[in-house]
């Protein structure tokens, strides 16, 4: 192999090495760009109303002149919610009575975080449950049922 051939081999090796480095760098750049686009897309989607609904647990107490049952309370609450906010929002919010202690007259309601204020407003308006006069007192809004249970145990 003469010197000319050796130079040609070296040049080929060098150019392939440079091509390899460039392709690796461009791969990293493109993958990073794809990642950034993905993050931006998620942000835009979230701003456009596609917010992930998170659960909220509302611990409440009810003070009535006569003790009320869970069914009576649920019935009055649902009727009042539908009257003020309509059936569409009632179905979207779907507030659920997780439990209600009839001896202490305290309970926990579960609702999406988007409709928390609606539920608190309806608890405020709730003045009559099955012919007994009542005041509903919202005690605490929690992110987990465990915390709400602790609050009710202390109450």
């Amino acid at each position, binding site marked *: 192999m003469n010197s000319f051939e050796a130079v040609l081999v070296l040049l080929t090796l060098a150019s392939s090495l440079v091509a390899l480095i460039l392709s690796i760098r461009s791969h990293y750049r493109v993958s990073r760009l794809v990642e950034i686009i993905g993050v931006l897309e998620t942000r835009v989607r979230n701003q456009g109303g596609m917010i992930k609904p998170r659960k909220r647990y509302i611990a409440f107490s009810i003070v009535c*002149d006569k003790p009320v049952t869970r069914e009576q309370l649920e019935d009055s609450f649902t009727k009042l919610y539908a009257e003020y906010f309509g059936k569409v929002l009632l179905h979207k919010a779907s507030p659920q009575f997780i439990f209600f202690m009839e001896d202490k007259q305290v309970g926990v309601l579960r609702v999406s975080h988007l409709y928390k204020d609606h539920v608190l407003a309806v608890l405020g308006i709730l003045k009559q449950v099955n012919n007994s*006069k*009542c005041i509903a007192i919202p005690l605490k809004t929690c992110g987990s049922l465990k915390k709400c249970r602790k609050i009710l145990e202390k109450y």
Partner: protein
Amino acid sequence: MFIDVNVANCTGDVLEAAGRLYFKFIACNDLREPLETRSLVAIPRFVLKATSVTELKNMLSTQGGIAYTAVTPLSLQTARWSTHDSRVNVIIMNDENIEFFDVKQFRAMKTHNKPLEISLKSLLALDDVKRGQAYRRINLALRMNISLIVGSGAEHWWELYHPRAIISLLKTLYDVPEPVALASITTRPYQIISEKLQLTRGKVGRDE
């Protein structure tokens, strides 16, 4: 420190329920002297309904200065006149006089720094048309930076509202921003109540 400025009857049950709902001050229609219990202070409140300015002037001359004085104007002249009288603490908007509250009225109230008082009991009892009018007027008042004061209008203990429920009600039904709703049951009424309490203490001090 929550305040309910519109309670009709200050019976034992009402005072107990108000204390349980974390109210520190309430203003009662049936009181003549301030009343202090273990958990809260109740001050007297006068509601003056007048159709003419002369009638309102006569009513104001007979009322003492230590009471929280609220005027329900039943004519346009009374509404305009009550904005610039310093004896009037607040102007009430309800179903009887909602049509008098327009841009001019709110401009006059803003000039003389007179708050607008609404009662939740009367707001929730309005029909659909009046409820729409109330929504527009409350939002107009807020856009014009009029102070808003909210009372329950309770006659019985079960008609009182929990402060958190009041804020949520105003926020969801009337699109009132949360800080404004909170101020309407705390700082705004406290400005008037503290002035009245100072007057009462001054009067007691002079008597002694």
